[in-house]
């Protein structure tokens, strides 16, 4: 048989006459290198017959053994090989068996082609997988790489080398590791010209990964040796392909070492971090220089030649590598001296030192540090790359080069990247050198974008837009590294106008383009607009130092012009879209929230020129209103309404910032202008706000409302009022400037004066109350007079009203207003607002209850809450007492009434504050009995059941920590009864429906119920953590922990495995459980067998859950249980008692103790199963006390594990590793912090040591 194979091999070899010498050379080359000490295996080399031992084991799964590929493979492995394999661990010592390498190669090739043809892919995958997972497949893989004609097979072989080497790294010999890397390197060099580039790229990346894996082990000399060859290839070689591959290798190396793009190797994060630092310190600059040399060397040839030459490929690869290196996240040695020097340098303010600006378009600041100065700045790099690109631009008409050819693209990208270089790389010369460099860059870039109208015309006629877009990006990068003044100056040396003017003109042109092509599917103008908008944002947002220079006057007028064009285009777009009906629904929602981002950038532009732009907005607004009134009854107002809608949004953004939960201040830019305004009522901001509020007030008139105030316009009005009022309405006193005036500077005083005038105009003692009253009346109108307009009412409830009651100085006035009392009265006592959406009713109830803290005394607040809720609780109580409740409960009108009332009570409950706590407790106490009655009456109406549960959850959440012991006892008793009732209704219940979607709805409802119940238990738990009661709970015989455990016992049977698939439910269940076990292990010990068994089973289930967080929770619970048991035992107590020794499974069979069971399954998990490395630490914390508790069991397990290991060498390693797991690092048997830490370390190294071979065998 062997004979026949040899013949085949010779035939095969002969069929490749050209490759023959190369092949013989290669084969001998690396085999000789690998086995230089053992020549015995070389058998008549001139026949090309090599005997190689096959380390490749067929491990195809049983179910696919019938497949031909696999059976072929099994045949290919002679019994001797199998026995050799079983005999153990032969590293590079056995002679390679040519025939077997052949066979392996063919089986892999077969698998590859059958996957491609989709013939029995499972079996083919198994074959390929078995190559990856077999121990030491290197020779086979190398053989395939060298010999296979099938590119896919070579690709897979490279991957297999990587997988195996990473897995077996810890027990490969150092020389062998190096030889693997060398093999890969030689391979890519030798096959640099191959057409299947992806194979070379893969091999290069394998080499890079292996090099990284060994980075900390290899000596500097080892690395030098490797990089010497790389350098030779990249810079010294005259062969284009070799240079190209060398650069390619460096590219994969850099991306491997960069944390964001590195491949996982199952090693701790520190490893990656160390590699990163080491590369940055020692090599990355050299790499950059090599790439630069390579590019320089070929660039003159490219410039000199009239048509495309192959060197262009090298040049663009080199530029790409340079770009990649400049993208590196330089940490550098943060030189303290240097940075403090910069801090002293007064001129440094000119250049933003480290901006935390993060635009939507990506713009990464490049801060390589001062070490790079010679390479990037002093060497005239900028001039060279600009020249290169300039020369390329001339050639775009030639064949082979065009605007988007790879070389042009990478050159432009590099130029853009050069624009964002900043930081200590520039000397502290007041930013002079950086400015010089930016000016130089701008002189090149300006040709891409100027003159804007001509450039845009050309693009509309079909020219590629990429140069324009890159030009815009370059402007953005420059904006990110400089202040507005510096930015504006840059162009002054080249042109009679500044950069801001150019930016403004360019963006105006882009927006005009957008306006003309509103409907067209041209995306470039959108992209250009967004980048330019980000440029403005980068210029105008305050940097970290908080100060921002004003723009020069020329810049301000440029901004004003631009804003006028922007508003014009927005209004045009608005009126054009007024009648469009397509995806109206999406637009409606997108309008207020998603447009936000763009509008806030517009607002930045408007604010720097607010002297012009705010009066401009006022004019536009009054024009539209006049038009509306003039056309009343005669023309269709829709277009004007849509324009007003847009104007309201724009005005809102310009005047005020989004609070995001805080009280926003008047924007700085607006404060800083208008210093000459003396009378508050002539202040442009006051005029604009006033005209909008007066317009809004007109909506109170029913006639005006029906003719003009469409729901959509009203949405904008409410949105504006919400946003505006949080900044300008009754601003807190402390926002006003210091009147004492530390700076007696005249301008400063005038500034303070105009600011205070603006702030006090709508203040508490001026127009504030009047405006507040108007706002409340408008809100009531939207709630009552716009039936069914959910979005509008949502805005009113959540944004406007809720925003108002959050502010202390507003609510004290609010509660004294008649309009607010009207609102409360309508809500509490009339049925009108039942027609609101349920969630809105809840929010309104919460808002009204929150306003109670505006009352002067606590009595008044509680009285207010009582009057608000009395009617509602009485209503519920009365209903629950009705004799025919069972019959009427399910009538739709009663159903609606009950759910509305419950939603409202829930809203009030979630507004619990110390001041109103008493009244809210009483409210809940009054409805306790009704709730239990309703739970019974509505047991089939899951919607109501859910509301009931949620009310109780929120009420307990708000109340529990304040309750006195007696009240707590009542609440806890109530909760227990609720749980029992719920469980008795639902356990063993099967609902059916013909409809699948109704069934899954029923599942979802049950899931929501259970989640609410778990929340309830968790809320009860908090009583043990925070408690404001004056006496202790024990006096009333209440133990929170026992109650919660009982609750868990009631709830657990309702939770099915099916329901645990809902991640939220699963998380809250396991976090509650592990919390209980951690805090109250002693209560667990007292549980009965059934309850304990339940918990143990649950933990076991959770331990094997796929969600890492759940596993982590279970591990924490296990740690707590085992530690408790161990400590108690140490003190001579029983600990977990019988649970630890014997436990019964549900079938009643006696099982081993729970701790030893968990010890077993945890070890099994750690050694043989898949898990995230993040879990190792918490697993160590659980394993350590478990081992201490069950030392005998552990010893038995360990012995068994060692017994099972047949391979002598592995057995020895395993024994040693197990030994040091429990003995190294001075581990002792006390459970303290230090020991836990030691054990964690031990377990980490133990797993790295043994998991590699335990998992494969």
């Amino acid at each position: 048989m062997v004979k026949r194979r040899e013949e085949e091999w010779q035939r095969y070899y002969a069929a490749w006459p050209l490759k023959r010498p190369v092949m013989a050379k290669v084969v001998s080359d690396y085999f000789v290198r690998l086995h230089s000490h053992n020549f015995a295996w070389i058998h008549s080399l001139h026949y090309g017959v090599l005997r190689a031992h096959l380390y490749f084991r067929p491990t195809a799964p049983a179910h696919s053994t019938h497949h031909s590929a696999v059976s072929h493979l099994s045949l290919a492995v002679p019994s001797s090989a199998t026995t050799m394999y079983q005999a153990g661990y032969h590293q590079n010592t056995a002679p390679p068996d040519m025939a077997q390498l052949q066979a392996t190669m063919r089986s892999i090739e077969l698998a590859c082609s059958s996957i491609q043809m989709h013939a029995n892919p499972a079996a083919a995958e198994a074959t390929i997988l078995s190559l990856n997972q077999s121990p030491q497949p290197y020779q086979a893989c190398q053989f395939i790489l060298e010999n296979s004609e099938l590119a896919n097979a070579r690709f897979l072989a490279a991957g297999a080398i990587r997988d195996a080497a990473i897995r077996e790294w810890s027990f490969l010999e150092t020389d062998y590791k190096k030889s693997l890397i060398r093999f890969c390197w030689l391979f890519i060099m030798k096959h640099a010209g191959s057409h299947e580039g992806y194979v070379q790229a893969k091999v290069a990346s394998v080499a890079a990964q292996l090099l990284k894996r060994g980075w900390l082990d290899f000596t500097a000399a080892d690395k030098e040796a490797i990089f010497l060859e790389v350098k030779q290839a990249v810079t010294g070689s005259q062969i284009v392909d070799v240079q190209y591959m060398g650069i390619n290798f460096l590219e994969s190396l850099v991306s491997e070492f960069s944390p964001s793009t590195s491949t996982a190797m199952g090693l701790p994060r520190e490893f990656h971090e160390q590699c990163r630092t080491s590369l940055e310190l020692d090599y990355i600059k050299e790499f950059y220089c090599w790439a630069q040399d390579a590019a320089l060397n070929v660039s003159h040839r490219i410039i000199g030649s009239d048509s495309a030459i192959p060197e262009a490929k090298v040049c663009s690869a080199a530029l790409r590598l340079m770009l990649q290196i400049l993208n590196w996240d330089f940490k550098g040695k943060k030189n303290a001296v240097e940075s403090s020097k910069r801090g002293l340098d007064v001129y440094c303010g000119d250049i933003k030192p480290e901006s935390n600006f993060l635009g939507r378009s990506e713009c990464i600041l490049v801060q390589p540090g001062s070490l790079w100065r010679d390479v990037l700045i002093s060497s005239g790099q900028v001039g060279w790359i600009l020249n290169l690109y300039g020369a390329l631009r001339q050639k775009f008409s030639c064949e082979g080069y065009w605007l988007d050819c790879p070389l042009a693209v990478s050159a432009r990208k590099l130029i853009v990247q050069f624009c964002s270089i900043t930081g200590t790389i520039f000397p502290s010369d007041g930013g002079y050198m950086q400015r010089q460099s930016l000016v130089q860059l701008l002189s090149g870039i300006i040709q891409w974008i100027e003159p804007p109208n001509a450039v845009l015309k050309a693009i509309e006629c079909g020219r590629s837009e990429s140069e324009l877009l890159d030009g815009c990006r370059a402007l953005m990068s420059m904006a990110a590294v400089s202040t507005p003044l510096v930015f504006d100056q840059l162009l002054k040396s080249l042109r009679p106008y500044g950069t801001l003017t150019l930016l403004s003109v360019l963006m105006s042109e882009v927006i005009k383009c957008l306006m003309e092509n509103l409907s067209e599917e041209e995306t470039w103008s959108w992209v250009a607009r967004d980048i330019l908008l980000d440029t403005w944002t980068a210029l105008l947002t305050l940097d970290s130092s908080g100060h921002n220079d004003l723009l020069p006057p020329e810049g301000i007028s440029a901004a004003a012009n631009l804003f006028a064009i922007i508003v014009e285009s927005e209004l045009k777009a608005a009126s054009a879209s007024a009648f469009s009906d397509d995806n109206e629904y999406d637009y409606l929602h997108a309008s207020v929230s998603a447009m936000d981002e763009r509008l806030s950038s517009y607002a930045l532009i408007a604010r720097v020129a607010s002297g012009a732009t705010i009066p401009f907005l006022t004019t536009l607004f009054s024009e539209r209103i006049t038009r509306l009134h003039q056309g009343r009854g005669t023309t269709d107002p829709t277009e004007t309404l849509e324009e007003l809608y847009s104007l309201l949004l724009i005005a809102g953004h310009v005047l005020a910032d989004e609070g995001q939960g805080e009280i926003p201040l008047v924007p700085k830019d607006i404060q800083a202008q208008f210093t000459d305004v003396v009378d508050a009522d002539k202040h442009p901001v006051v005029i604009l706000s006033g005209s909008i509020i007066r317009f809004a007030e007109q909506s109170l008139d029913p006639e005006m409302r029906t003719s003009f105030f469409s729901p959509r316009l009203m949405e904008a009005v409410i949105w504006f009022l919400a946003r505006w009022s949080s900044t300008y309405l009754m601003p807190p006193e402390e926002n006003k400037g210091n009147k004492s005036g530390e700076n007696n500077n005249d301008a400063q005083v005038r500034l303070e004066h105009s600011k205070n005038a603006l702030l006090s105009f709508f203040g508490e003692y001026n127009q504030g109350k009047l405006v507040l009253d108007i706002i409340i009346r408008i809100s009531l109108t939207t709630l009552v007079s716009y039936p069914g307009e959910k979005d509008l009412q949502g805005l009113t409830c959540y944004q406007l009203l809720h925003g108002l009651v959050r502010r202390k100085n507003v609510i004290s006035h609010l509660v004294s207003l008649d309009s607010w009392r009207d609102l409360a009265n309508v809500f509490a006592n009339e049925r009108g607002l039942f027609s609101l959406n349920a969630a809105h009713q809840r929010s309104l109830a919460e808002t009204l209850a929150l306003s109670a803290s505006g009352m002067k005394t606590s009595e008044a607040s509680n009285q207010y809450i009582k009057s608000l809720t009395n009617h509602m609780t009485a209503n519920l109580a009365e209903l629950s007492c009705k004799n025919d409740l069972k019959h009427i409960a399910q009538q739709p009108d009663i159903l609606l009434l009950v759910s509305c009332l419950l939603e409202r009570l829930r809203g009030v409950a979630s507004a619990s504050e110390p001041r109103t706590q008493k009244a809210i407790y009483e409210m809940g106490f009054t409805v306790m009995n009704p709730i239990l009655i309703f739970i019974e009456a509505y047991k089939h109406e899951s919607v109501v059941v859910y509301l009931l549960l949620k009310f109780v959850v929120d009420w307990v959440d708000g109340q529990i920590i304040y309750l006195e012991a007696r009240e707590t006892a009542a609440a806890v008793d109530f909760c227990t009864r609720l749980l029992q009732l719920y469980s008795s209704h639902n356990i063993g219940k099967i609902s059916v429906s013909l409809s699948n979607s109704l069934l899954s709805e029923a599942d979802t409802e049950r899931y929501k119920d259970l989640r609410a119940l778990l929340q309830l238990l968790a809320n009860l738990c908090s009583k043990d953590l925070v408690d404001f009661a004056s006496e202790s709970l024990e006096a009333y015989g209440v133990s929170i922990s026992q109650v919660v455990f009982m609750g868990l016992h009631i709830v657990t049977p309702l939770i099915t495995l099916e329901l645990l698939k809902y991640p939220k439910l699963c998380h809250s269940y396991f976090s509650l459980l592990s919390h209980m076990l951690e805090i109250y292990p002693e209560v667990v010990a007292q549980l009965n067998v059934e309850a304990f068994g339940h918990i143990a089973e649950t933990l076991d289930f959770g331990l094997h859950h796929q969600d890492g967080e759940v596993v982590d929770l279970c591990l924490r619970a296990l740690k707590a249980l085992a530690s408790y048991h161990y400590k108690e035992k140490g003190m001579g107590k029983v600990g977990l008692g019988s649970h630890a020794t014997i436990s019964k499974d549900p079938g009643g069979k006696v099982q081993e103790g729970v701790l030893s069971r968990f010890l077993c399954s945890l070890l099994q998990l750690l050694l043989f199963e898949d898990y995230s490395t993040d879990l190792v630490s918490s697993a160590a914390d659980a394993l350590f006390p478990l081992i201490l508790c069950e030392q005998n069991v552990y010893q038995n397990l360990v012995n068994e594990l060692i017994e099972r290991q047949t391979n002598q060498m592995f057995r020895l390693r395993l024994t040693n590793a197990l030994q040091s797991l429990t003995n190294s690092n001075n581990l002792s048997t006390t459970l303290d912090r230090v020991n836990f830490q030691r054990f964690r370390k031990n377990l980490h190294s133990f797993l790295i040591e043994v998991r590699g071979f335990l998992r494969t065998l």
Partner: protein
Amino acid sequence: MSDEEHHFESKADAGASKTYPQQAGTIRKNGYIVIKGRPCKVVEVSTSKTGKHGHAKCHFIAIDIFTAKKLEDIVPSSHNCDVPHVNRTDYQLIDISEDGFVSLLTENGNTKDDLRLPTDDSLLTQIKDGFAEGKDLVVSVMSAMGEEQICGLKDIGPK
């Protein structure tokens, strides 16, 4: 669809079969609604507008609670819809007859013999098997607009 339209069915007692008017905007997912004369459970509600500056409409997708057929309706959200009175009653199961009818024990001690076994296979086998094993079974019967159907099952036997 007029706002004040009520349906009275002659078969069962009036109280149980009424429908009630309710504003469309207040009908939520998982609530009930009458579409094309059928009692349905709402599985999806979405709102849209008639033109940009028009009023909101509700778009209901609902499932007939008896036949599981999917029905849809669009109603201006300020208008009223009919909401059926859906009642569910528990009865203890006494007997299953040969011809597919069940015999149920009512609250006042009478029997109710006019309900067929459900067509749903899983419920059917569970009822039959459970009954054969001698378990105490309670069935829930859902009724609305004059129709009745067994919709659920619960074992209340000794644990």
